[in-house]
Structure formats: structure tokens, C-alpha cells
């Protein structure tokens, strides 16, 4: 059963520490998204990649967040330094883009981040 895998599931850290979240997209999918979910803001797009190239990272605070795809099976989201306001659930999602159109999006189970 193909699924998006995210690690870690939970992360508790102190303010100022570096946090790295990882995502393994569904094999064959060529588009990867990072979302952040909070009660107040709902799902917010942070960044997305197609064929490993970043297409849009306008939703990320550039001074502290970075997203990369070192290869087709791994996407990373890094926060350095972390702040309490970064506490949220971070979701990775993957999909298949055909003829320029994003099709169905499949989500991982998320990383619950708490920054103390």
C-alpha cells in the first residue's frame, strides 16, 4: 500500500535548536509539498517541488526555514534556529503532475513539532 512516510512523528526541542523533518514521497510521484497546520491558520503551504526542483517556497520564512530534495526519494524541511511560534504539525504530501496539472495529493501522517 503506497504511502507518504514522514519522520519523526513527534519532536520536542528547545528554542534555538535545529530541527530537520524528513519525507519519503510515494514512488513515482514527481511533486512534493510541505504544509504546516495550526488551529488558527489551518493548512498553509510552505514549499513545493516538481521533479526535485523548488517551484514555490514563498510560504516559508526564508531566514530560518529551508527545504530540499537531495534525491527523488527524500525531501527535507529544516528550521534553524527554531522558535516557539514554529510549533505546529508539518505535513509532507506527494502527487503526480501530468501535462502541467497537479493531480491528487496524498499526505503523510505529519511531524508534530513542539518548540519550548
Amino acid at each position: 500500500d503506497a504511502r507518504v512516510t514522514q519522520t519523526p512523528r513527534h519532536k520536542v526541542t528547545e528554542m534555538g535548536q535545529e530541527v530537520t523533518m524528513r519525507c519519503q514521497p510515494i514512488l513515482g510521484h514527481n511533486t512534493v509539498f510541505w504544509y504546516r497546520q495550526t488551529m488558527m491558520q489551518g493548512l498553509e503551504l510552505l514549499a513545493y517541488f516538481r521533479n526535485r526542483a523548488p517551484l514555490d517556497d514563498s510560504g516559508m520564512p526564508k531566514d530560518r526555514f529551508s527545504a530540499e530534495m537531495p534525491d527523488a526519494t527524500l525531501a527535507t524541511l529544516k528550521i534553524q534556529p527554531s522558535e516557539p511560534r514554529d510549533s505546529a504539525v508539518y505535513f509532507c504530501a506527494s502527487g503526480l503532475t501530468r501535462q502541467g496539472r497537479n493531480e491528487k495529493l496524498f499526505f503523510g501522517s505529519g511531524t508534530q513539532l513542539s518548540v519550548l
Partner: protein
Amino acid sequence: QKEVEQDPGPLSVPEGAIVSLNCTYSNSAFQYFMWYRQYSRKGPELLMYTYSSGNKEDGRFTAQVDKSSKYISLFIRDSQPSDSATYLCAMIRDNYGQNFVFGPGTRLSVLP
């Protein structure tokens, strides 16, 4: 005004009831519409995917799109306690590589 609006609920119904969940949107460029279900501490999972106005049925679920009114609905027939979750609508524009826009979600509780 947000691009996609959705009543956050919570919505509580008795088991067996028909549930109606709705979203309105402001941008007529949206062409593809989806409903996701999200259980507590889980990621959203795709329930329905539709293009164009009209109805699409899948088991107990019916998705309805009215592009002229910029209004989409999800109906759940014979609701079950296992349907208790947050339901998010999502939509994308019909152009190249644009991202999905999500509604804030409606929390549904189906009481046994």
C-alpha cells in the same frame, strides 16, 4: 476575505443522519475540487475528486460542484460514528503547477 471559506463547526449529528458540508470560494479560476477527511493526529486523506459542475457519487458520499455560485458540497448519507473527523475542501486552478488551496475544515461528530 479568504479564497476558500468553510464553516468550522463543530457539527454534531446522530448516527444515520444525512450530513451536508459546504465550501464557498471567491476565485472563478478554480477548476478542480476535492474533499479530504482528516482524523485526529493523522494526515488528510482524499475522499472525492471532481472537475466541472455537477454531482459525483462514491458509496455514501456525494460531491456537488456549482461553479456559477462558487459553491461546493459534500453529502454523507447514513452517517456513521467512524465518519467523525474534520473535512477539508481543497481546490486547484487549471494552469501550470499551481498549489492546492485548502479550506479551514469542518469538524464533524456523528453520535451513536
